[in-house]
């Protein structure tokens, strides 16, 4: 027996059918996973960009004090901290810590 004779081994062509089918299936599955990963990465990037945009803006103007002040009948009231006076120009808040 010459060792070179082992070189001539051949598989039955029909044996390759399930192999090729499995390979095709695994390729399709991998492609689908890749697409899903790309879509997930895009969604994540979109969410991150939105969050960054939301929190990277400068300080907003916020209403600190909102009240219907019956100036004629009750010209003064006490807010959460300090006190406020209704004047002809608007409401003046006097914080007790600012008093000198």
């Amino acid at each position: 027996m010459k060792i070179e004779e082992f070189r001539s081994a051949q598989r039955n062509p029909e044996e390759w059918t399930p192999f090729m089918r499995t390979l095709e299936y695994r390729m399709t599955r991998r492609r689908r996973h890749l697409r899903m990963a790309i879509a997930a990465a895009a969604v994540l990037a979109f969410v991150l960009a939105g969050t960054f945009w939301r929190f990277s803006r400068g300080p907003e103007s916020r209403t600190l004090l909102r009240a219907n002040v019956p100036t004629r009948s009750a010209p003064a009231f006490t807010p959460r901290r300090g006190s406020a006076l209704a004047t002809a120009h608007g409401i003046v808040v006097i914080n007790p810590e600012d008093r000198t």
Partner: protein
Amino acid sequence: MTASFLGSLLKKSRRGDERAFFKLVEATRERLFWTARRMVGRDSVAEEILQDAYLGLWSQPAGKSPDDPMAWLRRFCINRAIDYLRREETKRSVDAPSAIDFAPAGTNVERNYRYREAEGKLFQALDLLPPQERAVFILKFIEDVDYADIAEALGVAPSTARNQAMQARRKVESELKAKGIEL
């Protein structure tokens, strides 16, 4: 099948031509299967290694496509088979080869029987070799691969591959001689 032809098939498949990739598989699968099969001794494991090799090649990033897909695939299969042998060294058993699988074309029944018998004994002798020597022996003496390509596949110097091949051949010959088979 030349490296440039296989390389062009791979390039086509990179551009979305899936049929080109399957042509590449059809052109290389037989040879790679037997390389892996001779290494691990099991059809199912050889097929699994081959599946992983093709998926690995197919998933390579476009910029990293190998110029010689056959060399890349062979390297992948050999290294995966060596890993498998190292893991399974103690519990491995060889599948009984079937007459249809192994019979060279145009042989008669008696010759088939002798072939199967010798093949089984050769595998038993190969079992005695360390995984890397086994790979060198199979690539050099059964598949007639150049030492330079063997060295590249195994990541060793060509002189190392040559020494390992000679050492492996001596071991296999003495083992087979003890069983009454001359190579």
